[in-house]
């Protein structure tokens, strides 16, 4: 793990889980697998704190454990998974667009809690939805369950590995740690639950006194009765599926940019049909016949069969090969090149140009021109660069060296003679896309870490002011509840002076800007990571 990744992980852990968890997580990421004793001795924390933190990390799928042959347990941190914390808002938003508020809340609860049983999720989400509804209305469990089932069917949530149900002999001591197994087939099977009930509204403050005793008793009853029927079956969010979804979105928008709306809709339909059947690392979707595509087009699109065929042929003939033709049966079998044509996406200007857009911001638009030129022509000599880019020699040299020093371009030597004499060698400038991508990714991690630190610094600087404003708001709220006059409210509001108000405004604006930037950089990180992953050859 690079330094930048470790730094970013530790910042994310600290912000979301606190210092103790952060120390342990960072230690594990830095040093690999460790047993419990090792962690305690190296981090200098109390044993109980370490235990607590490890429980939290395991619950959130950030740390895994393994029982070694010699009987002790080793813990390993998943650094990549920690970095995904940055992307949680995007997952939740996607769930909202696909499955409305119910889906959004389900995914949010699962992300906040790591893993949960289905009954617990349904109950919590129903309660939350009931809160937001008008008085008297409640959310039915059945509705929430059906959304959950849909999420499971489209693979957005998946089951966690289970504790094996081995019948142990009564003499044998229980294993120090269970080895969790997961059957591939069962990953998305929803247990048959009979969840009936409605969401409960939280009691208002007045009833707290009496309500609490009752609540305690209820809880007691709930605990002492049988465990819920799906006890032991935990669900977690399937992050890879969300990534697949983002990737599909990218492809569709690329097609829309290059061609028109209709062709992008066709590609979207094809992708939707093969959502569940394509594994995340397959280069192509399953072949779909054009008849099937025609049948599955969304209802609003009334294009004739011939028009569809024409579009498909057009897509297949396109040099970018979004769609490939793989056979002729059923009116033509087509696949979508899902292994993200990232190289093209990254570099061609009329698609989603990533690398060339970073350049003008650092070096100027002329540099970007040179860069695009090099991408297209692959290798160029110094002189040729000047000629093709139509930039005077001095400036061209300057820019090339700047880019060279930042490793965006590299030099390729081509010797004319076997002794590699410098005077008789060609030196060509070239762009190495995978390595530029990696370098950019590293930079992205650094930027996000810087952004988070800056945001924390800003918040810390104004802590006193923030606390004051919170107190004033609390006072205002309580006074309004008890019915105070406008004059009194005015007086309280004036406790915060105008310059302080201005400062608060500034702070809020800055924090919002920084947060939005973090989200933006995370999108870039996603594209770059997917590309790099696709270049790594799997055995």
């Amino acid at each position, binding site marked *: 793990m690079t330094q930048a990744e470790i730094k970013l992980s530790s910042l994310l852990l600290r912000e*979301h*889980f*606190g*210092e*103790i968890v952060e120390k342990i997580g960072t230690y594990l990421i830095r040093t690999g697998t460790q047993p*419990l004793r090792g962690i305690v001795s190296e981090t200098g924390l*109390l044993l*109980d*704190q370490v*235990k*607590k933190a*490890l*429980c939290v990390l*395991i619950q959130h799928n950030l740390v895994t*454990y393994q*029982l070694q042959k010699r009987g002790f*347990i080793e813990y390993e941190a998943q650094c990549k998974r920690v970095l995904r914390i940055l992307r*949680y*808002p*995007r997952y*939740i*938003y996607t769930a*909202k667009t696909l499955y409305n508020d119910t889906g959004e809340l389900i995914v*949010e609860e699962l992300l*906040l*809690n*790591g893993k949960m049983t289905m009954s617990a999720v349904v109950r919590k989400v129903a309660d939350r939805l009931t809160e937001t509804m008008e008085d008297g209305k409640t959310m039915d469990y059945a509705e929430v369950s059906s959304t959950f089932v849909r999420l499971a069917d489209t693979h957005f949530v998946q089951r966690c590995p289970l*504790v094996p149900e081995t019948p142990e002999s009564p003499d044998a001591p*229980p294993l*120090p*740690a*269970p080895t*969790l197994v997961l059957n591939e087939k069962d990953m998305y099977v929803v247990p048959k639950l009979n969840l009936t009930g409605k969401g409960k509204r939280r009691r208002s403050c007045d009833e707290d006194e009496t309500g609490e*005793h009752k609540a*305690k008793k209820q*809880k*007691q009853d709930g*605990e002492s009765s049988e465990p819920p029927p799906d006890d*032991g079956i*935990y669900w977690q969010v399937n992050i890879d599926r969300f990534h697949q979804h983002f990737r599909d979105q990218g492809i569709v928008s690329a097609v829309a940019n290059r061609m028109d709306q209709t062709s992008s809709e066709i590609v979207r339909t094809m992708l939707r049909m093969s959502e569940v059947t394509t594994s995340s690392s397959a280069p192509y979707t399953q072949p779909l016949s054009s008849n099937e595509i025609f049948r599955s087009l969304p209802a609003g699109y009334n294009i004739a069969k011939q028009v569809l065929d024409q579009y498909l042929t057009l897509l297949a003939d396109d040099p970018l090969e979004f769609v490939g033709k793989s056979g002729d049966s059923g009116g033509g079998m087509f696949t979508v090149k899902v292994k993200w044509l990232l190289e093209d996406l990254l570099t061609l200007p009329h698609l989603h140009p990533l690398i060339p857009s970073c350049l*003008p*911001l*650092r*070096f*100027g638009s002329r540099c970007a021109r040179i860069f695009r030129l090099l991408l297209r022509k692959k290798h160029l000599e*110094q002189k040729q660069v000047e000629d093709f880019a139509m930039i005077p*020699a001095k400036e061209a*040299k300057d820019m090339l060296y700047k880019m060279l020093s930042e490793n965006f371009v590299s*030099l390729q030597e081509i010797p004319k003679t076997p002794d590699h004499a*410098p*005077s008789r*060698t*060609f*030196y060509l400038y070239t762009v190495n896309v995978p390595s530029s991508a990696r370098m950019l990714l590293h930079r992205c991690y650094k930027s996000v870490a810087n952004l988070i630190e800056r945001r924390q610094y800003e918040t810390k600087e104004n802590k006193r002011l923030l606390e004051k404003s919170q107190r004033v708001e609390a006072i205002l709220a309580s006074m309004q509840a008890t019915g105070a006059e406008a004059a009194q409210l005015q007086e309280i509001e004036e406790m915060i002076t105008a310059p302080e108000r201005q400062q608060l405004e500034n702070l809020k604006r800055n924090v*919002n*800007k920084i*947060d*939005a930037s*973090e*989200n933006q950089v995370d999108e870039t990180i996603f594209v770059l990571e997917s590309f790099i992953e696709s270049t790594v050859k799997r055995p």
Partner: protein
Amino acid sequence: MAGRGRGRGRGQMTFNVEAVGIGKGDALPPPTLQPSPLFPPLEHRAAPLPGGEEGEYMLALKQELRGAMKSLPYFVKPGAPRRDIERYSDKYQISSPVDSAIDWNPDWRRLPRELKIRVRRLQKGRTTILIPKGKQRVTLDKEETIKKLESLEKKEEEVTSEEEEEKEEEEEGKEEEEEEYDEEEHEEETDYIMSYFDNGEDFGADSDDNMDEAVY
């Protein structure tokens, strides 16, 4: 020797610098003698952030998520720092969750056994609050106060342990002294340091924390 004829006083390289484009007499940038500045001057302004409904919503989500996670039990707060002087008000303050307690109930079947923190201590701790030495009347009042405090915490074990303690309280009074030792670790209520008496219960269960207390 080979490079002597050319470019004296300038950095000599192994390859023909002309081919790369550095002509004769060109001024190269001076060598850098220090690390690059922390905040280099920004030559080009960054592009504006994409706004729009999606961006706004995700922004709100992000901030909400941050706030929500801080209040969840998964956010492990470091234990309250021990005061050097025992204050009267400590008795009436709501005690923060003890270091060794977990506020949520993980499914212990899925976790390695070694991660389980013993909760017995908490029971003992509770026993001692309820049973100050000897005075049973005061005990009852205290019980109610403690009950109210406990209703803020979410552990059912306390409910059951309270019932147990009520029974225990009627039965014995001698056990108080034994438990004073444990109590000291958590609630510094008494003036007596009962560390003389080591009932051996904490042997092995106690790790090397709490070393900041004087052990006689």
